[in-house]
């Protein structure tokens, strides 16, 4: 056996042990340079089956009586109004900025609550520090909460808490919590075993292990994930304002679109949101770069 560098189409260069004399040849006796391995076959199978389903769906969609030409023209016309003639009729610029701030704060609150709760849960379910039975239980719980879309959470809480910031924050928090639990747990699981084992061997309890080993080493990742979630929560808060009447700029958007049908106002709101989100994204890339 010798070590040889093998090039796999779907992977990095890697060294693998190969038999000395064995060379795979195809039916014409040529040396096979990239044989189909299991992963390649799986990729092909998945792509083909997804494409078939896509074609079936497109045929079904084509059966819906929509005048595509007219509708597409109208969409372009509406888009041009939104993007080239933004104007405010119903709200003042300061009010829009204030609503943007409200949406921003909804995102901040739900991210704060979500990350604190998620940190506690993640410590209970990261496999390298927690009891395996508790870990499974918490992971299952988080997966079920995560499976329910944010809008449903907000609407459910709105029934008993009333529409407003309380329902919005609790609803957004629920989904952030379960999402961050998964991400935090993965970040903690990825850390090196060394420090934890050393502390365990010296007889340190659970809390010292968390404070002295887990948090210091994984802090950067936790912060990066938290900020990423904040970005998601901001856009979610916009959507919740529109879909569940949870306040903030999303509600203005809903009123401008579905109530006043004022495309000019929608244009202004779109630009305001766009600017805010792009700023957040710029900051997020910086945070991510710091983390890696």
């Amino acid at each position, binding site marked *: 056996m010798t070590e040889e560098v093998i090039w796999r189409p779907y992977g990095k260069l890697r060294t693998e042990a190969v038999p000395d004399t064995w060379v795979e040849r195809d039916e014409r006796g040529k040396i096979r340079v990239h044989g189909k391995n299991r992963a390649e076959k799986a990729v092909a199978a998945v792509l083909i089956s997804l494409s078939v389903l896509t074609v079936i769906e497109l045929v079904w969609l084509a059966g819906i009586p929509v005048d595509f030409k007219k509708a597409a023209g109208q969409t372009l016309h509406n888009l041009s109004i939104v993007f080239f003639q933004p104007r405010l009729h119903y709200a003042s610029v300061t009010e829009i900025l204030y609503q943007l701030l409200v949406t921003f704060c909804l995102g901040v609150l739900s991210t704060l609550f979500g990350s604190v709760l998620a940190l506690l849960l993640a410590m209970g379910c990261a496999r390298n520090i927690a009891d395996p039975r508790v870990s499974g239980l918490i992971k299952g719980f988080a997966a079920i909460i995560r499976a329910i879309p944010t809008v449903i959470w907000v609407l459910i809480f709105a029934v008993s808490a009333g529409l407003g910031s309380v329902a919005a924050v609790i609803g957004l928090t629920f989904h952030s919590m379960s999402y961050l639990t998964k991400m935090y747990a993965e970040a903690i699981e990825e850390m090196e075993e060394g420090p934890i084992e050393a502390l365990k061997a010296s007889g340190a309890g659970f809390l010292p292990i968390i404070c002295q080993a887990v948090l210091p080493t994984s802090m950067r990742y936790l912060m990066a994930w938290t900020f990423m979630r904040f970005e998601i929560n901001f856009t979610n808060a916009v959507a919740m304002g529109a879909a569940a009447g949870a306040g903030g700029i999303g509600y203005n958007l809903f009123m401008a*679109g579905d109530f006043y049908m004022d495309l000019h106002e929608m244009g202004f709101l779109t630009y305001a949101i766009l600017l805010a989100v792009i700023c957040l994204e710029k900051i997020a890339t910086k945070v991510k770069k710091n983390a890696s």
Partner: protein
Amino acid sequence: MNKVLFGRKAVAIEILLIGAVLFFAASWITDFHISEGIRAFPAAICWIAQNMVPKASSLAKLPKILSRLAEAVMLSIAVTMIATLLAFFTSLAGSRTTAWKKGAAGLVRMFAAVFRNIPDVVWAILLLFSFGQNAVTGFLTLFFTSYGILTRAFIETIDEVSQNCVEALKGTGADFLEIVFQGVIPSAMSGIMTWILYMIEMNIRNSVLIGLLTGSGIGAMFDLYYKRLEYGVTSLIIIAIIILVLTIEYITDRVRKVII
């Protein structure tokens, strides 16, 4: 000085302080009272436990719920595949390793950033005006957001994974198509597949929100029974969504493990 600001204890205190300031400022601006939140929470859980239980009569709606969910899955798959196809071509123009002109790459990136950051609410309302309440509106709304996200993801994947082999191929004098088919696609394939699977998952989840906004699909059905206060059916829809999402997560996870 550095020790005072960046010592372990100092960082912990700073994080707590920043968190507290953010909490109080944000609570004040959004008119959120933590006491109200803490009081509302157990009440909400009690309410859910009492009301969000499917009744025997709501089971009659199950076939309709399942067919709506199947529609959502099919829609999400189709949206993801078509968005993938278009986003791949866009990302070839936007990636610094494959772009034919460096300036063009920057333009494509900017175009993709605008596309990605227009909120889905805006797409939903705009398309609702021209396409009306049907699955096509939902399809297009999901498509536009997926296209933006996938373009950014593919550009990053290509930049990260393919740089070395594209350079090597360029060195041998390969033309653009050869570079794409022999270099970019094979090296970026597993990254692209991961994104396709993730996007299908995300679109299924998102289709509830989009359906709610555009009045079609599973989202509209949820909205209907929710507004009629028929919580038996509403809870049945939620349970069906949970099972569907967990199943899809399980399947994509298995596929991902085989592929990578």
